[in-house]
């Protein structure tokens, strides 16, 4: 798009010089395209191999793997592998679980973290400084450091269960949806991003609204939220991927098959030693939704990641 609109340059006069420079630039461009395409092949070939192989019988995947046919949908193409996956494991249930956990985590996270960000960036209250320092300290705690103690902890937490029509009090959050959602709702980095973004909105808006009689929650809901679309998009994207890709945590806290998310389900399926084609079908099945979301919102994805780097 910006092919010819390079920066206005002060060029020395002289046609020879100019055409030489242009030739040099064209050659450099050619090399750039070659390099970028070569690297592009390196990044794409495993995924192309995956998509294509998911349509082939396992024997053919092996015999094709020595030639370019490995990347081409040729030979005995069918959806049999997909049917095979659905027969062997409850993939539909895994997908529903993951979609549910992801959507609820992201939605609750947007609400909880943006409210905290609002209170931290726009309100003066006792305890604000403490919360802010906890949030900043929390930015450097990788989940892996607390995963093991947390399994122990959630196995002791009280919960309510329905049993025979009665609501009962019990202990242990293992094997539930809540254990896959609740611990990940409050997210220090999201709070941090919201706080940063909200503090760029002029405070005079709040004052005007206060004079008109608006309460703080109204200001949050009617002024700040509508003005903060990009911040919400960034946080949604940055929390969506880890929620969908959750592996270590559900591996430890969810043993019941009907509650498993896709990634853990995948690992169990893989351990059944299924045919290669079926493995590829499963991985395609859980990769495609994310790829579609990514390709539809690529600019937002890329700028979210960039934003995470600028602030961090």
């Amino acid at each position, binding site marked *: 798009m910006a092919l010819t609109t390079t920066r206005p340059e002060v060029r020395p006069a002289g046609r020879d010089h100019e055409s030489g420079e242009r030739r040099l630039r064209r050659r450099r461009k050619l090399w750039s395209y070659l390099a970028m395409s070569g690297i592009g092949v390196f990044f794409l070939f495993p995924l192309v191999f995956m998509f294509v192989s998911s349509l082939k019988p396992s024997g053919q995947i092996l015999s094709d793997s020595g030639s370019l046919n490995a990347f081409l949908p040729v030979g005995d193409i069918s959806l049999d592998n997909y049917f095979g996956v659905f027969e062997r494991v409850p993939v539909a249930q895994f997908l529903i679980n993951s979609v549910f956990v992801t959507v609820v985590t992201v939605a609750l996270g947007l609400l909880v973290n943006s409210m905290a960000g609002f*209170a931290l960036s726009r309100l003066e209250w006792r305890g604000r400084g403490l919360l802010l320092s906890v949030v900043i300290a929390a930015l*450097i705690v990788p989940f892996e450091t607390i995963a093991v103690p947390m399994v122990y902890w959630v196995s002791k937490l009280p919960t309510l269960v329905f049993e025979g029509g009665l609501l009962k009090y019990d202990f242990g959050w293992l094997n539930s949806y809540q254990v896959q959602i609740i611990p990940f709702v409050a997210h220090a980095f999201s709070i941090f991003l919201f706080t940063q973004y909200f503090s760029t909105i002029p405070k005079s808006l709040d004052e005007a609204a206060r004079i*008109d*009689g608006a309460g703080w929650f109204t200001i949050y809901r009617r002024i700040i939220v509508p003005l903060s679309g990009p911040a919400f998009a960034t946080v949604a994207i940055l929390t969506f991927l880890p929620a969908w890709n959750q592996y270590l945590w559900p591996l430890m806290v969810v043993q019941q098959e009907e509650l498993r998310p896709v990634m853990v389900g995948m690992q169990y399926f893989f351990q059944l030693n299924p045919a290669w084609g079926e493995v590829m079908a499963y991985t395609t099945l859980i990769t495609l939704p994310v790829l579609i979301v990514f390709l539809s919102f690529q600019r937002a994805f890329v700028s979210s990641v960039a934003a995470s780097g600028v602030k961090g």
Partner: protein
Amino acid sequence: MLDTSTPATEISARPAAKPPKGTAPAQRGRGRRRNSLARRREFRAGLAMSTPAILLLTFFLVIPVLLAFGLSFTNARLISPNAPRLVGFDNFLRAFEDPVFLQSLWNTFAFALVIVPVQSALGLLLAVLVNQRIRGVFLFRVIYFIPVVTSIVVVSILWKLMYSEDGLINSFINTVTFGAWNGVDWLGEQSTAMPAIIVLSIWQAVGFHMVIWLSGLQTIPGELYEAARVDGASTWRQFTNVTWPGLRPTMIFVLITITIDALRLFVQVDVMTQGGPIDATTTLVYHAVRAGYRQQEVGYGATISLIFFVLVLIIALVQRWLTREKD
């Protein structure tokens, strides 16, 4: 836009007109009262809106961190009829006599030692390539970023199949060498398992750091390049004298995030090698999970997690220090 139908709050409920001169003390008193009422409301609003986050952070961050400390000094087990007992520094002493722990510490460092320079350099190279003002460059950014949005579980399984003895990679080498190549079980050999994991880890994550580098590159003002060009600086000189100094803050961020991510290595190992062959790929986090969860020794698992945490903390402090120096 505003909800003006709500009942008047304290501000409009009070006379807005200024009292005449001479009633200054009374005015000040009233002002303070109004102020303190508004302040109380602000305090209540601030607390109310942060309460969900405060509760959740307390339960699922602060307490687990404290537990990581506390449990390291006990012999707690995941499922046990007996209450955990204090054992002092036993777990720490045990860790430094545990050959698997020492091996995992070394493996984690070795992984980071390769990943950090290679991945950050490749990320920068990609960023420079896709930062050119030429047609179609955005397409390449998207392509390089695709592995980042692909789950690491999927990536690990996919590469495990490609690495197998009759898999894509051996077949490819075999074809290129006209059949002179005997397949290698990349993940089954002690010497090649970790390098194999390194390659796919870079393949998966480098696009992320490309984007970070790219945003750093784009903060460098174009006039600087123009000035350099007018002075007749070559492309390489432009890079060393303009680009590289301008990238310092980005560089610190990239190095730190890659280091911390490298220390967290778990999924690839869990899916591809289960720590083998002969613990050649066991990492700190993998060992912590194996001890703390699979063998149910929460106390010992917490100890390894804590040592891991201290390492991360040191790196974060280094980052603090480096970025402070800049200001």
